[in-house]
């Protein structure tokens, strides 16, 4: 039995963890003899592959757009700075959209960060808490005079965003699943709503007024105020169509009055 050469556990783990991502020459004393063994690469490779595989699984539309080689090379750069913080790798890549926005090789693909954000939304919707989607009939239970003060609560799976930079939603939806639609894309700003009213994740385009309305609802503003906010973005917005479109998409889970606590 030897005791002298044993590095205390924490010291060993600090050095080993660093060595997984550093050049072998930089390895700390506690693990230098391990890093020098060719088999150390098994750990390096497994950790890197686990992180990159998780990103590829979490951002399939990005990977399809740029191709697997480009994606994995970009992912390797990201992994070097952003290791997973939690063991559920579904959550990994929270900041990958921002990374792509600032990643010089992606500069010619201004829509890429937005596509990544929609991939992220898909995962968030996929694992969000279960809830029934609010139906039109819920409005019938309310005194119409009170509706302006009522609040619409977004569904726990609902995620939405407006993309000034271009047709991000169209590009994303064509690349998220095998899609034969090769038609021309109208180059204009777009919004997207991704949610999971039932078993499967669903998505639809939303206009700027709809996105603003959802933002206001998420902030807890009453319906009248949220509609004003929507009109502020688009004075010509058709408010009835806006609300019924969002309801049909499964964007909301509850309708409550401010005086009541949530049921």
């Amino acid at each position, binding site marked *: 039995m030897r005791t002298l*050469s044993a590095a*205390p*556990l924490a010291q060993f*783990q600090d050095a080993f963890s660093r060595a997984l991502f550093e050049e072998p020459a930089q390895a700390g004393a506690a693990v230098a003899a391990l890093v020098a063994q060719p088999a150390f690469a098994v750990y390096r490779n497994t950790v890197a592959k*686990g992180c990159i595989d998780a990103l590829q699984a979490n951002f399939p539309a990005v990977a399809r757009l740029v191709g697997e080689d480009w994606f994995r090379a970009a992912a390797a750069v990201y992994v070097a700075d952003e290791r997973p*913080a939690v063991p559920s790798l579904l959550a990994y890549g929270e900041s990958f959209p921002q990374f792509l926005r600032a990643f010089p090789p992606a500069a010619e693909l201004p829509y890429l960060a937005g596509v990544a954000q929609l991939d992220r939304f898909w995962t968030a919707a996929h694992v969000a*808490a279960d809830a029934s989607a609010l139906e039109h009939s819920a409005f019938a239970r309310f005194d119409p005079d009170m509706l302006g003060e009522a609040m619409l609560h977004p569904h726990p799976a609902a995620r939405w965003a407006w993309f000034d930079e271009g047709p991000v939603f169209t590009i994303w939806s064509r690349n998220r699943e095998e899609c034969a639609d090769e038609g021309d894309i109208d180059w204009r700003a777009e919004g997207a709503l991704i949610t999971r009213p039932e078993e499967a994740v669903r998505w639809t385009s939303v206009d700027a007024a709809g996105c603003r309305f959802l933002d206001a609802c998420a902030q807890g503003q009453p319906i009248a105020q949220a509609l004003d906010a929507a009109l502020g973005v688009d004075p010509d917005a058709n408010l009835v169509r806006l609300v019924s479109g969002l309801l049909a998409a499964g964007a909301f889970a509850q309708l409550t009055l401010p005086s009541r606590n949530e049921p």
Partner: protein
Amino acid sequence: MAPFLTAGLGLKPRHYAEARDCPAAGLWFEVHPENYLVDGGPRLRWLAAIRERHPVSLHGVALSLAADAPPDAAHLVALRRLADRIEPTLVSEHLAWSTWRGAYHPDLLPFPRTNEALARISSNVSAAQEALGRRIAVENPSHYLRIDGHEWEEIDFLSELAHRTGCGLLLDVNNVFVSAANLGFDAADYIDAFPAAPVMEIHLAGHSRDPALGERLLVDSHDAPVSEAVWSLYGRLVSRIGPRPTLIERDDNVPEFAELLAERDRAHALLSAPMARAA
């Protein structure tokens, strides 16, 4: 009486429906709980639907029992919630670390088996068992590196861990084979010396070579069928310690469900024979 578990399979999302509907005797399924620590959605519903028809085991990869830190409290709470929901037949983890100072390394990392490590891991296993309200099984990992400073042989370390904490052990026969090849010990000797009583579960899996890293290096890649050499060690083990729930792991190059089931049927047949003799 609960059905006796024989051989099970790692559950793959693409096999959910076939897994749920499979009537094979003794069949059970194992999942990595980390993939199910979600608020809701189809994953959890599928797991619950499969659990309605088959026993399910939770095989964690992220408790990081060998880290010099207590297991993450929030992670334990989430695991407990999943365990309460699924009522697993077994819960297991690894003699390894993966989470360290807020970063999760998706691998099972080694450490020097010192007295210090044994004390820390014993305390971590006890904390995990207490938080989960059940006994867990701890698995022997695959080894690739020669580490200076071991104060314990792995089998003695695991036996002492089981003695101190009351935990069970999960013996991964493929890991023994891979480690024996990489570190130059005799796999059969290891299998013969492993304590029988604490073994709650056995794992079988395929491995592969990585010539880029060394002529003889074996990697515990879970991307191939169980090798004949591992089947032979498994037969040797079961004939000595008797039948134990046995899992076929497969994580890469995942074949059709029927092909995995045929592989698990081989373990099932082996487990059923001595059981029949004992009955």
